[in-house]
């Protein structure tokens, strides 16, 4: 196997992994701390992409677009929490699934009304287009490299906030035993709103970074949501550390499977059979991985302590 190609695919896997992590971090916190299944997490990804694209085109500044897109998604997240999700915490998961599925439909239609059903034009800033020369003649798109850097930076920041600050302590405590946290006089409602808002902003960040390379269109969030659920199940629900590890594993496994499974199968079975089995198996790989993890560790790789 060509070493440069392998390195390039590793970067691709890393890039997919950090994107998944940005989505998974918010989702796993909300699930773990608030015990809320939020199917509408993908909608916040979409909102982030639309707002950033809109503001970038309106102001002509990518930085301003990112800033307004992020804060816009944060506000949307907080409003959704205050208006819709508050009433759902005490209900069972089926009600939550139903209500948040309703939110998906609501957001998709709202976006379709505001911007139309067509995918909108989105472009990356000129400063970030182009390639960088890495070792061994490997040319890698600058924008994708930027995604990796941002993703890792956010992971470090989250590690610091969750592991080293008072807010993080409350979040971890909330994930372990929320009744006790409330009994200790912490305003759990406010904590929920803050956590949900930041989870939304992270999803928005993933969405706005995906905007210029993917498709900005209604329903774009649902395409990534299933992979994100796979990540949080593998990582252990409620665990940021688990989400990070699982996101990188899933990103890597998916990328490597898509890239190398078919040629490798062709060494063992006939090339014709590999042509059929390769793509089918590659698209199943992360689900097989999830099934294997669940069989060995039903709580996920890094379960959050407590109930």
């Amino acid at each position, binding site marked *: 196997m*060509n070493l440069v*190609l392998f390195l*390039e*695919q590793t970067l*691709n*896997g890393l*890039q*997919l992994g950090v994107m998944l992590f940005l989505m998974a971090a918010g989702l796993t916190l909300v699930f773990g701390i608030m015990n809320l299944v939020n199917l509408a997490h993908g909608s916040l990804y979409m909102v982030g992409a639309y707002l950033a694209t809109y503001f970038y085109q309106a102001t002509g500044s990518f930085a301003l677009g990112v800033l307004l897109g992020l804060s816009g998604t944060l506000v949307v997240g907080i409003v959704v929490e205050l208006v819709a999700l508050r009433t759902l915490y005490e209900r069972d998961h089926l009600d939550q699934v139903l209500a948040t599925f309703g939110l998906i*439909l609501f957001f*998709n239609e709202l976006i*379709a009304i505001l911007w139309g*059903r*067509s*995918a*909108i*034009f*989105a472009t*990356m800033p000129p400063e970030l*287009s182009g*390639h960088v020369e890495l070792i061994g003649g490997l*040319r890698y*798109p600058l*924008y*994708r490299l930027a995604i990796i850097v941002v993703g890792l930076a956010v992971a470090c920041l989250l590690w610091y906030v969750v592991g080293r600050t008072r807010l993080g302590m409350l979040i971890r405590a909330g994930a372990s035993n929320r009744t006790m946290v409330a009994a200790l006089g912490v305003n759990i409602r406010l904590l929920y709103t803050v956590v949900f808002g930041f989870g939304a902003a992270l999803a928005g960040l993933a969405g706005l970074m*995906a905007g*210029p*390379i*993917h*498709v*900005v*269109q*209604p*329903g*774009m969030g*649902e*395409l*990534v949501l299933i992979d994100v659920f796979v990540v949080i199940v593998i990582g252990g629900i409620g665990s940021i550390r688990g989400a990070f590890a699982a996101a990188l594993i899933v990103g890597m496994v*998916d*990328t490597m499977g*898509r*890239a190398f499974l*078919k040629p490798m199968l062709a060494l063992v079975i006939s090339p014709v059979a590999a*042509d059929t089995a*390769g*793509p*089918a198996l*590659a*698209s199943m790989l992360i689900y097989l991985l999830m099934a294997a993890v669940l069989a060995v560790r039903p709580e996920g790789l890094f379960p959050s302590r407590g109930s």
Partner: protein
Amino acid sequence: MHNITRPTIAGLIASAAFSTLISAPAFAQQKVKIGFITTLSGPAGIIGEHMKNSVELALDHLGRKVGGLDTEVIYGDDQFKPDVGKQVSDEMVKRHQVNFVSGIIWSNVMLAVAPSVVQAGTFMIGTNAGPHELAGKLCNELFFTTSWQNDQTPEAMGKYMQDAGLNDVYIMAPNYAAGKDMLTGFKRYFKGRITDEVYTKMGQTDYQAELSQLRAKKPKAVFVFYPGGMGISFLRQYSEAGLRGQFPLYSVYTVDEISIPAVKHAALGQIETRYWSPDLKNPANEKYVSDFRKKYGKYPVFYGAQSYDGIMLIDSGVRAVKGNLADKKGLTAAFRKADFASTRGKFVYNTNHFPIQNFYLLKAVAGPSGQDPVMEIQKTVFSNHKDSYSKDCKMKW
């Protein structure tokens, strides 16, 4: 999830009063019910919107009367899923008792829907998907399509690239019924070396891993089939990865009037083959394109042109049997004549009820005064092209 278009109450009362006043012919009280299934929600919803808009435009052009009868069109959303498509079509056939089921974008949905519709004795008028099974051994007297057989369009591109003397071509498509048909069709006419044949996940949004593999193989050219949103992602990432200058990209159903507004200049110079284009010169097409642009403020796309044709085909059949919708033999015979003004010009049915038609080479060229690029016909690749499966179809007429 479906909505039902009804005539207004006032219209109903008026027509009721009208029909009591005039001694109407035997079938005048009868109503044509068409169940139109497409994808109306999610990322592919834009395709469904174009199809629905074109159906509405066809109804406008027919004075809201298909075959001279009152018409009810029930729209159904397959949500991009074969099982949902099947449920929706069952509901249309059994509960709404429609006379015609029409539409359907995706070949995997079509394969779930069409056999059960025709088995129930209802006509299926496909307006996009053309899986090879329905052109060959599953062909049926009650199944017609106003689009094409999946293999045909890539066959035209295969021929073009063969004639251009290209070699070492890397070919890619999503892993589902139509993706396989498309690459099969391409290989039927392209005889040069294929560097690699790659199938990606249906609905995939990121192609970076595949593009890295592609670059490492250093092909001379690339041929892809990526409909809808997949095409937008693919085109963007192909440009972003800097491959555009290195490996010329040829495609089918990837660059169209839906994807161009989202990728703009990234589509410029892109070559496709297709049976239709907005600039195709014939009176029916000119009327369709200009009225569509007037009503909806954007260019129509081939999905829409086919759907418009579908309603016009139904209209021609219902007229031929003088509104006697129970006369299925008569309807089949009438449909076979395809006696309507198609947006593609000449329209002749092959024995398997797939059209025999021309295929053109299209290029995305700069639009007038800085607008988005537009597709323009360059030349004819195939004249009166038949699909390769009609020989497997047992129907004789």
